[in-house]
């Protein structure tokens, strides 16, 4: 029996992919990693998650970071909650305010970018013998602004008609810097194209200026991984409270808890809350109907 799947369209791959549900236990592991705050491990965890939840896509690790972001946000919206509650500190007054972000609105924004084909695929060459195919980075986390950035946009290298991409680690440093000039131009073009795109923006109700507080779609400033961390972050203790509550109060089997989505577990909790409310109402009604002594 095939498990329940949902779908999302990916502009980079130009196709719709199927996604399996994010189960509670897996989400708990993700939150543990986010709490531990090592960006490399978190990015690796997201890649593993994508591989497992999209089993029909064997090359998902090579998908563009925007496609990966779309899938992860869709998972967040479907399996955890469709909105994200944010508490923001006003940069001018330092006062805090709350706001809600609909995750789907971010996905829609990413769908509507309409990036030109040369952002996804561009070839630079030297002397008709070296051809380097460039494309949007796949990694969700780029920490260094050095030459290693160049490696993230190289998708394929052909030398004298032979594909030498698999040897990139050994040959990367021997590439002539003249080719680097073209690669740098591509990175500048890519950065310039995305520079005004915000994953999220709002204006503080306390500030008199209309300056926006924003999270840009800038892979080279860590804003993508930071945004994902915000989207998936949750108090780790709450997982243990939920497990304790569901097992002790609702007598739900741990196997069911493990394999349910966080959103489904919320449904059980809400059922219980509704039931309690009904009981309280009934109790109040009973008290009101009691004859006065």
């Amino acid at each position, binding site marked *: 029996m095939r498990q329940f799947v949902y779908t999302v369209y990916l502009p980079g791959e130009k196709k719709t992919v199927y996604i399996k549900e994010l189960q509670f236990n897996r989400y708990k592991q993700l939150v543990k990693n986010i709490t531990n705050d090592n960006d490399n491990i978190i990015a690796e965890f997201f890649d593993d998650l994508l591989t497992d939840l999209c089993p029909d896509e064997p090359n998902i690790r090579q998908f563009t970071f925007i496609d990966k972001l779309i899938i992860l946000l869709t998972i967040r919206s479907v399996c955890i909650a469709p909105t994200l509650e944010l508490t923001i500190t006003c940069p001018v007054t330092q006062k805090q305010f709350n706001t809600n972000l609909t995750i789907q609105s971010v996905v829609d924004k990413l769908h509507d970018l309409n990036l030109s084909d040369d952002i996804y695929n561009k070839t630079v060459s*030297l*002397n008709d*013998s*070296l051809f380097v195919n460039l494309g949007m980075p796949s990694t969700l986390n780029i920490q260094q602004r*050095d*030459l290693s950035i*160049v490696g993230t946009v190289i998708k394929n290298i052909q*030398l*004298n008609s*032979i*594909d*030498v991409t*698999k*040897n990139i680690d*050994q*040959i*990367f*440093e*021997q*590439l*002539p*810097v*003249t080719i*680097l*000039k073209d690669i*740098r131009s591509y990175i500048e073009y890519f950065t310039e194209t995305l520079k005004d795109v915000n994953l999220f923006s709002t204006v503080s109700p306390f500030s008199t200026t209309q300056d926006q507080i924003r999270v840009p779609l800038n892979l080279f400033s860590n804003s993508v991984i930071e945004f994902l961390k915000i989207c998936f972050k949750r108090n780790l203790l709450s997982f243990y409270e939920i497990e304790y509550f569901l097992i002790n109060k609702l007598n739900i089997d741990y196997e069911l808890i493990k394999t349910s989505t966080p959103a489904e577990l919320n449904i059980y909790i809400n059922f219980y809350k509704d039931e309690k409310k009904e009981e309280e109402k009934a109790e109040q009604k009973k008290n009101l109907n009691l004859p006065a002594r």
Partner: protein
Amino acid sequence: MSGNVSDILKQLDTLNQTTGVDVFIPSLGKTVKFKNLNLRQQKDLLKASVDETLTKLTFIVNFYSIIQENILDKTINVNSLYAFDRPAIAIALRASGLDSKYAIEENVYDLNTLLEQMPSIPVQTQPLKSIVDIQNLTVSLSVPNLNTDRDISLVAVNKLKNSQENDIKTLVGELFIHEIIKFIQSVTFKTETDDQTVDFANLKVDDKIAIVEKFPSTLTSKVLEFIKGYRDFEAKFTAVGDANIEIDGSFFSV
């Protein structure tokens, strides 16, 4: 061609040779073919520019290796080239491989214009060699060859790389003395009976320093005067408008 890594590296090397760049060498007065820089070489240059105190010295050391590695005319002895050839080679490799535009503050300069002017800069003996006589000492001065410059710089880097930031006086003093000894070819001590000449090429760096530290201040001043005259000459190869390009590892950051 197979997909073997060593074969691929050979092919890349061949590609780097066929896309070589013509570099005018001022001391030879002619153009010599060089391989373009590769990413590893650029990375090494940039890494060396991180330590600001020793950036110039580490650049001299690194760039010597690059010149040895990238010069395609193997009949030329790199050790016979001079320190003022280095900026000419660096500017040509930067302009060809990375970017011919170079910005100093808000002004952007075309390095190709500078390269076109280089052959017209006269290279004469006057600022490059000199003899200084003070009392019973005769000092023969010369612009250092690339290997002398590299060897002394390497010793200085190794000595100073672990020095504390607050030990700035020692650092400046050491840099100063190492710079002076690069320019001394020989010292002759004259006595009533005979002359004794010490050839600096045959001395260890510390022995050179020990001798120079005993120089009377008038002699040191004459040596510094020579070095200043040479620096003015060298600056002609890096002059753009009213400014000069600082040639070190950061020059290769684009």
